[in-house]
């Protein structure tokens, strides 16, 4: 790659290919309906790999909800759900989905079709289970939920072991459930192939993240917020691996040439929480201060293979056990102590100047603990933090002017610290 080619300092060229990849995902869904192949809704954090391994086409309504938001339809859908009696205070992904289904929206507007069955888990939130209960009743389709015990700061190894046993048992029950509903059998060889791809996909994503440690950071949220979707929707397929590899190569070339995503990188930030999908441009405004987000636990979390006890061998040879272990131990559900520790490590390793914490009104599981997290990071580790109140899919809950003023003052604090 010539220096001229790599000088683009905004989105990576490779990220442009994301549209095609996601297009393929939606085409695969259409094709599945045409072929009469079974389909399933799945919540994030659930083992989508099992669906691919059993030849069931997954659909992730959360992903679709972000599409609605990006296309500026989410508010309308949310209000439709509220008319049905769903509270203003409930998760806006859920309400977006209720409105999208009710209005029979196209996939490009974030619509989702009636699946053969639904798979939820409470690993991340109650909402996932309640949401699919609502929609499974509406569509009259079977719904399987995986109950994941909650790991807290003082959970011991003994407990962890029987937590895992419970999840493993349910995953095997889930295989039986799929077989019963679809007639498809679990094929170990196919499962191995799928988990191999899922592993590879995550590893490239993690490699991309490694590059973000470099100053200046080669890629910004323009690449990661959208780039995350294949991890949700296509873990187990080959195409997204190729895309991620291209992203990596391009980012690496930037690193090798000392080029950052910003022309002038002044402040390196971390962003905790889900972005405002209806206003992704907002994150571009950080550039006016030379600030760049170099780490988002949210986009990193779904490259799930982070638990050192889950080795590649385990993933390939005992995929069910590996999945169970991962469901108990990934970024998005860390107990408070681990969460603080991970934040401190990340701030150090990614050379972060300040942390933005999104107090997401939709996502109580994620916003729970933010206040203490902020206090710990600031008081014990001297890391500046700012809490922003907003919502990931409901534009009514973002007060842009207020948030901008807060960030501006925050940047000023970071500036003063740098002068010292």
């Amino acid at each position: 790659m010539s220096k001229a080619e790599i000088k683009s300092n905004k989105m990576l060229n490779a990220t442009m290919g994301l549209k095609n990849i996601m297009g393929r995902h939606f085409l695969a869904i259409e094709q599945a309906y045409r072929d009469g192949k079974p389909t399933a809704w799945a919540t994030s954090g659930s083992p989508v790999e099992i669906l691919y391994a059993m030849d069931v086409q997954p659909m992730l309504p959360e992903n679709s909800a972000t599409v609605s938001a990006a296309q500026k339809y989410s508010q309308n859908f949310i209000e439709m759900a509220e008319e049905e009696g769903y509270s203003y205070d409930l998760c806006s992904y859920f309400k977006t989905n209720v409105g999208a289904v009710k209005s029979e929206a196209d996939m490009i507007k974030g619509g989702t079709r009636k699946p053969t069955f639904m798979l939820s888990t409470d690993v991340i939130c109650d909402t996932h289970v309640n949401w699919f209960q609502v929609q499974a009743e509406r569509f009259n389709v079977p719904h399987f939920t995986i109950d994941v015990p909650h790991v807290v700061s003082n959970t011991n190894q003994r407990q962890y072991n029987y937590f895992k046993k419970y999840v493993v048992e349910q995953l095997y029950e889930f295989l039986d459930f799929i077989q019963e509903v679809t007639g498809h059998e679990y094929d170990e060889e196919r499962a191995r192939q799928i988990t191999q791809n899922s592993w590879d996909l995550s590893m490239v994503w993690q490699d991309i993240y490694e590059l973000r440690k470099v100053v200046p950071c080669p890629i910004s949220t323009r690449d990661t917020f959208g780039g995350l979707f294949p991890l949700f929707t296509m873990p187990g397929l080959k195409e997204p691996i190729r895309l991620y590899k291209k992203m990596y190569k391009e980012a690496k070339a930037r690193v090798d040439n000392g080029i950052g995503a910003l022309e002038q990188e002044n402040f390196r930030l971390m962003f905790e929480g889900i972005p405002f999908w209806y206003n992704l441009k907002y994150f571009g405004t950080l550039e006016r201060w030379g600030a760049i987000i170099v780490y988002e636990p949210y986009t990193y979390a779904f490259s799930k293979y982070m638990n050192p006890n889950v080795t590649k061998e385990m993933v390939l040879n005992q995929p069910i056990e590996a999945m169970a272990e991962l469901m108990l131990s990934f970024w998005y559900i860390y107990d408070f102590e681990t969460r603080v520790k991970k934040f401190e490590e990340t701030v150090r390793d990614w050379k972060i100047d300040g942390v933005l914490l999104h107090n997401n009104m939709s996502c109580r599981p994620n916003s729970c603990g933010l206040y203490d997290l902020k206090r710990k990071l600031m008081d014990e580790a001297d890391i500046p933090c700012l809490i922003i109140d907003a919502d990931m899919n409901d534009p009514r809950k973002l007060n842009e002017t207020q948030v901008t003023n807060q960030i501006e003052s925050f940047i000023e604090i970071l500036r003063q610290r740098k002068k010292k």
Partner: protein
Amino acid sequence: MKKIGIFDSGVETPEEIILAAGLIPYRLFGDPTIEPDKANEHIPPTHCVWTRNLLEKAIKGLDEDIIGIIGTHGCDRTNREFDIWLECLNFDFMFFLNSPRKRDESALKFFIDDMKELITQLEDHFNVKITTEKLRESIKKMNNIRSLLKEISEFRKKMILKGSEFHALVKLAQQQDKDEVVKILESKLEEFKTRNPFLDTNIKKVILTGSDIDDTEFIKYLEELGFHIIIDDLGVGTKYFWDLIDENEEPIVALAKYHLNKPIHSTKFPSYERFEVIKKLAEIYEVDGIINIAQKFCEPILYDHPYMNKMFKNLEIPYLFVEVTYNRESYKQLSTRFSAFAEII
């Protein structure tokens, strides 16, 4: 005697195990006359009003006899906030019990494992032995309390006992020494047997459901507006005593089965089955209507409400859904809605 505080969005904690350890199970309730100022420094104000209130009380200091806390898996609030309790409170014994969301065979096995872990940790920490015999004794004791409460509850149907008076008794049963509880309930039972019914013909008989309600004043407030809570579907209510534990089975297994088979709370799966529970009670007790109360920001109830609304509409049973802020002053603002409902039923 020393107590173990229970932080539970329902009544999913096996009190028998605590009793068998020689301790008093003490379910934590809120105080709707205080503001959660300190708790708001830890939990955003758009999260459940009730758990924030509980945390407020806990930060300010609990009864000094309380020497440990058990948090029990219920909704996202109890689950996620337990770590905050660990941060804010200074108890040597704090245990999170993962009462399962599902109610099948694997859930049963898991719950048994988790209860065994609770036993191990109680034994190690308090240097006690929780024997099968002690567990059997405490199951018997609790079954006795359940039977007494169930019998007393029927005086609500006979229009002898007001819902608020009954509510206060169930609360008491969840906090006091169980031997004391038995004595109080036995004497109350005798008293109710001789008490005359109240003769208000205009009274509206309702079933109360929703988030758990621990403020007896709220029940009194509903009574002042013309309702009689003839039956309920609450943790501070029927969910605490409706079924009995099998006394012949191995105690831990019996305890686990009891909790997985009792009338479902909205925090468990599938929560829509709660509709069947309410419907059945509504039929048996020939209620005039259903009042479903959600504590402000209570997600489990907020998710289920439109389904309940639809189903009760189909059955042509009047149904009222109200969100309540856990604050006595704010109840008054709801009077118009409750009164309008009383008028139509």
